[in-house]
């Protein structure tokens, strides 16, 4: 993947496929580390499956037999000296999966974060009926988007309505401008 934001898009698709009603995507940049957390309330994975997801030859897809999502994220993290941790539970009251990836930004092999705004917009456009809580913290402050708040204001108008998608793009642009000017 050319940008970490594409890994974020790819990994979050797994959360949606796992039936998550809420997926929390958090990026925290402090000093020279970047920590990415994707936490969902989907159906979770058993210990047996969990052991196999880092293996490129494990996949849930049926069209072909190789799954590269987690291995690619792991590669991107480990080549900077970082790592990926996955915690998952299928417990009836507390099910879901949390993927945490740590990157060292000063490492030569750090993949740039890229366009996170486009990733968030793409996720909302593709999955307007599930919720996303996105936060991006840097030393300058925080960008935040909670689709539950948008949904409440929209009173039944779908989140993938073009006017709404354009609003989300402009909102995120504005938030990032404020963050970068601080």
């Amino acid at each position: 993947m050319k940008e970490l934001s594409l890994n974020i898009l790819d990994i979050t698709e797994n959360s949606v496929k796992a039936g998550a009603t809420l997926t929390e995507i958090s990026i925290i940049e402090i000093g020279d580390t970047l920590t990415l957390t994707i936490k969902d309330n989907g159906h979770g994975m058993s210990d047996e499956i969990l052991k196999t997801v880092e293996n490129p030859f494990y996949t849930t897809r049926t069209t072909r037999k190789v799954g590269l999502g987690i291995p690619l994220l792991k590669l991107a993290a480990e080549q900077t000296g970082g790592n990926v941790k996955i915690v998952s539970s299928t417990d009836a009251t507390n099910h879901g999966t949390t993927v945490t990836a740590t990157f060292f930004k000063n490492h030569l092999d750090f993949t740039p974060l890229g366009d996170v705004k486009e990733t968030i917009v793409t996720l909302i456009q593709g999955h307007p009926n599930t919720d996303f809580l996105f936060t991006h913290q840097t030393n300058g402050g925080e960008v935040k988007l909670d689709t539950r708040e948008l949904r409440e204001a929209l009173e039944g108008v779908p989140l993938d309505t073009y006017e709404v998608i354009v609003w989300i793009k402009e909102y995120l642009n504005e938030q990032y401008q404020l963050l970068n000017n601080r």
Partner: protein
Amino acid sequence: MKSLAELQAIKDKMKDKVVIREGSLTTRVVVGMATCGIAAGARPVLGAFVEAVNESGLAQSVTVSQTGCVGLCQYEPIVEVYEAGKEKVTYVKMTADKAKEVVEKHLKGGKVVVEYTVANCE
């Protein structure tokens, strides 16, 4: 500053439109967004379709949606166009610019852009 009040304004404007939209959709554009598609550049292709369809006033009849892996990973980004009463058209190795062209010539003009289809890609 962007505010939630603007969303409420969109809501008021859209409330009537939503009903009309339901029955009139005739064309579906489906973009492959699995790991293979994303790595090959599907995200800007999807964005270009969403923008071009809406900016050319086709939103009443065309939906743009996302799907998983179609099984032809070497041809990603792949876009399938389903039109009522017509055979499915599969576009391969798409880019944002090609997407705009497909919206203009195929979705708006009714002529399949043969050079970008899978049949033309061997």
